[in-house]
């Protein structure tokens, strides 16, 4: 355990020494996911690279080549797992080789340094032409003119290839501002089949209601093994509980027009009670064994059921191969057992063109080529991520269904069919609101009464609305 943690930390430390800061969850939403789900060892998947068909590359070439001078573009990508970084490098090199007039300069920026580096560059007018952006940030950035509309820069056909719910993530009132790369649901239940059996539970019947989850947690807790692990600090709960907020109350803690808090209901009371009971009954550790995004303790066998994002599949498949046949995957239980209610939000990443980019057309050409072009490029990505992330494009899924390795993966099938269709988009309001609500959950876990915690959240959210003049500013409303 020390060794693995050491790796992750030494990676973090290297970046930190230059910047003296680290975050367990970075960006305004869940940009921490991919970092901590890091899988240092797997380059094996890379060896099975698909080759871009010559036809395809040639076709793309013809379309995007602009006669004249060579254009050099800056591209900043958030640092994710080593496999993702390698994928960006590999295909950017490929793009540079096949496009004589465009040169993409790729910089991988650690999540911890992202906000600082980007804001400094924006202030100096030197923001990169192309950058990665999580879905929650797209609408606010579009509103401030930080990113450009892509409707006129990209072939409109490429947007028709997106699933309908994802179209909504990357557009504001019918205008597209980003092209999505992947989606990943924020909450999936991982459980240990062998421990289920030992506790007299049916390993093929994971819990489907919160009550069952708590009950199973009690039965599975023993010395050295906690029954359940999930987010338990405000910083983690802020984004990881969005899905359960939809699940319990059917909406988020603020009205759709952002004019006032909307927390006083039985759904949220049940939600706070769920976390409170889980924490106080001792089935969860009193202090988190790891951040929500990092399911390492489950892989190490310290936890019998872990709620984490789909990205943890990549972690288990890369680092805990000997555990794989003991691990079960199921949708996150729902408040009343109805598994068609949302339990997760779909996080994920897209590429955007900076609002001040002088070569927006070329930048958009690169995005089209990489994310919206040959499905094999994206399939290469999903393979290297061990199918822990999911495609926002229909054509990629269709092509993947022809792929024996992808189509026979039961976990991918389960998440694609039973979690993603019901998952919601991440909220686009200021993260302060999410934190205020998460603080209510945490204070209920730490002994505050549920009603008082919700009252405080209501007051705090109304304060935020008033101070930041949020009423009526929802760009999507």
């Amino acid at each position, binding site marked *: 355990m020390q060794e693995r943690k050491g790796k992750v930390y030494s990676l973090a430390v290297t970046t930190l020494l230059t910047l003296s800061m680290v975050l367990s969850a970075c960006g*305004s939403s869940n940009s921490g996911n991919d970092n901590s789900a890091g899988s240092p060892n797997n380059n094996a998947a890379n060896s099975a690279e698909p080759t871009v068909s010559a036809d395809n590359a040639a076709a793309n070439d013809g379309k995007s080549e602009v006669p004249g001078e060579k254009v050099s573009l800056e591209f900043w990508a958030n640092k994710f797992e080593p496999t993702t970084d390698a994928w960006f490098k590999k295909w950017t090199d490929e793009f540079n080789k096949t496009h004589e007039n465009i040169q993409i300069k790729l910089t991988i920026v650690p999540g911890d340094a992202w906000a600082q580096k980007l804001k400094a560059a924006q202030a100096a007018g030197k923001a990169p032409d192309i950058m990665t952006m999580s879905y929650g940030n797209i609408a606010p950035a579009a509103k401030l*003119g930080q990113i450009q509309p892509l409707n006129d820069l990209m072939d409109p056909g490429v947007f028709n290839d997106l699933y309908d719910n994802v179209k909504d993530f990357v557009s504001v009132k019918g205008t597209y501002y980003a092209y999505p790369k992947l989606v990943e649901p924020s909450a999936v239940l991982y459980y240990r089949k062998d421990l289920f059996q030992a506790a007299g539970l049916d390993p093929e019947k994971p819990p489907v209601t919160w009550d069952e989850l708590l009950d199973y947690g009690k039965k599975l807790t023993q010395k050295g093994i906690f029954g359940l692990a999930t987010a*338990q*600090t405000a910083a983690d709960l802020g984004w990881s509980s969005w899905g359960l907020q939809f699940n319990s109350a059917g909406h988020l803690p603020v009205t759709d027009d952002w004019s006032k808090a909307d927390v006083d209901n039985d759904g949220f009371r049940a939600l706070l009670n769920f976390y409170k009971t889980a924490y106080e009954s001792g089935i969860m550790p009193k*202090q988190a*064994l790891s951040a929500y995004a990092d399911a390492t303790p489950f892989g190490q066998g*310290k936890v019998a059921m872990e709620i984490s994002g789909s990205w943890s599949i990549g972690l288990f498949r890369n680092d805990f191969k000997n555990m794989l046949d003991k691990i079960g995957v199921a949708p996150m239980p729902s408040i009343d057992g109805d598994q068609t209610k949302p339990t997760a939000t779909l996080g994920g990443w897209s590429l955007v063109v900076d609002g001040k980019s002088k070569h927006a057309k070329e930048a958009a050409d690169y995005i089209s080529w990489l994310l919206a072009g040959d499905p094999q490029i994206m399939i290469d990505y999903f393979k290297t991520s061990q199918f822990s992330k999911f495609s926002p494009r229909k054509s990629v899924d269709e092509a993947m269904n022809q792929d024996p390795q992808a189509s026979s993966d039961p976990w991918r099938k389960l998440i694609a069919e039973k979690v993603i269709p019901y998952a919601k988009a991440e909220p686009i309001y200021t*993260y302060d609101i999410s934190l205020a609500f998460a*603080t209510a959950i945490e204070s209920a876990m730490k002994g505050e009464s549920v009603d008082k915690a919700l009252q405080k959240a209501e007051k705090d959210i109304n304060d935020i609305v008033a101070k930041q003049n949020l009423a009526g500013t929802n760009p999507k409303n």
Partner: protein
Amino acid sequence: MSKKNYRFDNATAYMMLTPIVVLLTIFVVIPFIYAVRVSFYDWSFYQDSVFVGMRNFTNVLTDDLFLKSVGVGLKFAILVVPAQMVLAFLFAHVIKGMGSKLAGFVKTAIYIPTIISGIIASIIFVFIFDYSAGIANYVIGLFGAEPQAWLAEVRTALASIALPAVWLGFGLTTLIMLAGLLDIPESYYEAADLEGAGSFAKMRFITLPLMRNVILFLLVTGFTGALQQFELPLIMTNGGPLNETTTPNLYIFNHFRNDVLVGNSIASALLLFVVLGSISAVIFKVLNSEKAVDG
């Protein structure tokens, strides 16, 4: 003639001052003035900034969390600085009494934490306070106690991050204390011995008064340093549980990271500047240092 000399001196003085004045102007004065200006705007990099008057400041001042963070910073400083000073003072006496070879070794040894990055120290202490595998819980387990959630319990979190802060600052504080101690002429103590003064009287009437400037320096730098603590809570607790370890700088950083507009961060940074300045002024006033005591 004297006039000429006078001018010559001035020119030299100005010449020698120039580099630091230029550097300070570029890196401190101009950014500071610019920050003050920006703090009155909804500063945007892509659209015209909007003048909002004092709104950023009133928002910060009416934010419970900002006030709480200043309180957390003060509590943290009170946990760290006195403990560090007392320990360093005692240990400096121990070193003073050692033979020179041993003292050299000990001085090097205690200085090591100072050169360790705060980030690395945080990670080491995260391991120590780990719930299921940390040394801290292992040790109290030997005495039959239940594992403690050191970093997640409101009661213990701040003290748990104060510990590495004391550890990190201990070496440097001790060495500065030791330098102060060695600066006191031995003859004072010999004279006191002849008068029959005990150890306590020597401490009370010779050591402490003559160490006043050293103590003042350590108090001011210690307090401002502790109030500005940032990486320990960032890595060890992320400001939790329930914001009990959100220091002012972490508060500012969180806003900088999460806010779409940076006005709030700048306004709170300027307000923190006022808080730090006032605290330093209070310490100076209390210790009354303008009448520097000369050894």
